[in-house]
């Protein structure tokens, strides 16, 4: 995407205006807001719904909302959902069929127009996650047309990360905290003695056009420097790291490691890690009928490799019946065989799977342990 125009600075009123402009362009604006004791992603109708003054305290298996005296709006790391919820929704109808008076079935593909989303507050790691989903769902010969429709219409406002959580490791995965390509607008939140403001850059023509409608001033050197420094500092404050080795090889070398038993002992097979993961894309299909049997629908819904039914075969039984086989499938695919299948890692280092695992299984800790076990096995006796 083109690097559009000169950076500008907007304040909170400018952010209010951004939401108003996006709404005025007929977009459904999705962004962070406080609900149910968490910072969730939901439809926004105004800037006052942004989580100003709220941060989060994260640990493995633990998430707590914490007030922030500085009033920051984006000083929180990944929450319980990701943009996947909107681009690749939990449930979606694929087609409907009607039996006519002549007994013939007439099928019609789902044709409701895709919503025109504007995503406000997309983290650099999550922007890379959307890119991963793009490759998975539209990169091959069987592209998901409905995903593509939503994706192509979506307007992305990225917000650089200035406040990583204790479970973040985007630096290890090369996905943050500075924003990469793929945004329409990118913001960096700056809070200092000169006030609460946002450095804004446009990445596309539509981004430039939207930016032009906002109350703004040209970016001053102090704001640019402050923004750059805050992102650089964030890179030094990652809560987690991945072992500095080729993870794809590590997964291949450790398929029979003892460590899998250790992780599995703590695994509830609840599937939470897969459903909070911004790139886990698996679904199952269910056909439903109505009482008359003359109307049928096919629905697709999120599925998880932790579900026994996921590998259930006709004739009975699941291929991956043991929790060990399911946990290993998830992790080796996520950071190993994903490369073979889709040309990149499936992990962007957002840390959601660590936070939202009720028992706190930590993907980075498991990778370090597997790496240590491999190293120990390679030592001469």
């Amino acid at each position: 995407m083109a690097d559009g125009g000169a950076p500008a600075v907007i304040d909170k009123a400018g952010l209010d205006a951004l939401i108003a402009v996006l709404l005025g362009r007929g977009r459904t604006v999705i962004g962070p807001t406080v609900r149910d004791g968490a910072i969730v992603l939901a439809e926004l109708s105004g800037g006052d719904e942004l989580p100003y003054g709220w941060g989060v305290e994260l640990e493995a298996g633990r998430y707590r909302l914490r007030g922030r005296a500085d009033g920051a709006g984006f000083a929180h790391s990944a929450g319980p959902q990701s943009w996947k919820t909107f681009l690749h929704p939990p449930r979606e109808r694929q087609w409907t069929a009607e039996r006519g008076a002549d007994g013939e079935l007439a099928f019609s593909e789902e044709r409701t127009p895709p919503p025109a989303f504007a995503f406000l507050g997309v983290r650099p790691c999550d922007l890379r996650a959307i890119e991963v989903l793009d490759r998975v769902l539209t990169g091959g010969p069987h592209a998901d047309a409905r995903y593509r429709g939503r994706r192509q219409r979506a307007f992305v406002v990225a917000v650089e990360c200035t406040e990583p959580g204790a479970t973040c490791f985007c630096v290890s995965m090369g996905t943050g905290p500075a924003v990469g390509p793929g945004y329409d607008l990118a913001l960096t939140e700056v809070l200092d003695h000169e006030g609460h403001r946002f450095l804004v850059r446009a990445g596309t023509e539509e981004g430039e056009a939207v930016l032009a409608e906002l109350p703004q001033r040209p970016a001053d050197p102090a704001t640019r420097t402050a923004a750059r420094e805050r992102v650089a500092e964030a890179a030094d404050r990652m809560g987690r790291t991945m072992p500095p080795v080729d993870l794809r090889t590590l997964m291949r070398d450790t398929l029979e490691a003892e460590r899998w038993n250790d992780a599995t002992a703590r695994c509830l097979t609840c599937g939470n890690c897969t459903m909070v993961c911004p790139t886990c894309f698996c679904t199952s299909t269910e056909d439903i009928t109505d009482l008359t049997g003359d109307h049928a629908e096919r629905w697709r819904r999120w599925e998880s490799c932790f579900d026994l039914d996921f590998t259930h075969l006709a004739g009975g039984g699941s291929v991956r019946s043991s929790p060990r086989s399911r946990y290993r499938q998830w992790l080796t695919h996520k950071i190993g065989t994903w490369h073979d299948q889709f040309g990149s890692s499936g992990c962007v280092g957002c840390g959601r799977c660590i936070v939202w695992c009720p028992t706190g299984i930590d993907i980075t800790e498991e990778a370090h342990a597997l790496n240590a076990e491999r190293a120990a096995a390679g030592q001469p006796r």
Partner: protein
Amino acid sequence: MSTDGGRRPKLAVWKFASCDGCQLTLLDCEDELLGIAEEVEISYFLEASSAAGPVPYDLSLVDGSITTRQDAERVQHIRSVSRRLVTIGACATAGGVQALRNYADVAEFRAVVYAKPEYIATLATSTPISAHVPVDLELRGCPIDRGQLVEVITAFLAGRKPDVPDHSVCFQCKQRGTPCVIVAHGTPCLGPVTHAGCGALCPAYGRGCYGCFGPSNSINFPAFIPLLRRDGMDTLDVVRAFRTFNTAAPEFDAVSREEARR
């Protein structure tokens, strides 16, 4: 599937020891009730009509658990006159809350509760229908979910497998977009070990799951119980958490007995 010659399949609804809530769910189907009545002949349903249609029945919905000798005999008859038998709810599927008697002395209960205990003839245990006769499908919940009931009837009519997943409540919480109450609030929640079906109702209102739908198909109690303790439950709380509507479900029964020994 069971229709012959275009006649509407006959539906029967039976009651054993229960509060009747699950069979009343059929009457609570409001929007779908007329459609159901058009597609099936509601042949035997004493909550709705005292008229009983002739046997056999194509689909029997059985509510309640077996707690008397007479009921143990009656369920045999019901099985013999039913082409398909589906249990509805925690009582019929797992023995219900009345299965708490399985942990106590029923004679003592009877003496304490009733003025004339000699009038009460009851078994020492409350058992699910499947302990007595073969069951084609078990629908979970206290009470059952209306949507699942309609799905079972609809699937029966279409001759297809009903869409009744047996994974945990966590799957439905995530699909619904509810932040995990364990992780975000430290609220004890049975969701990770409980069968889906309710649509993850309680967590959506900030409450932990009470386990109304009984055990899910993939449980790791040794990893799960410490979470309940961390979040404030003592041994008695943990035992009680599993000794509710599905106390006699084998997985919940085993873990509550194990915890009670601590």
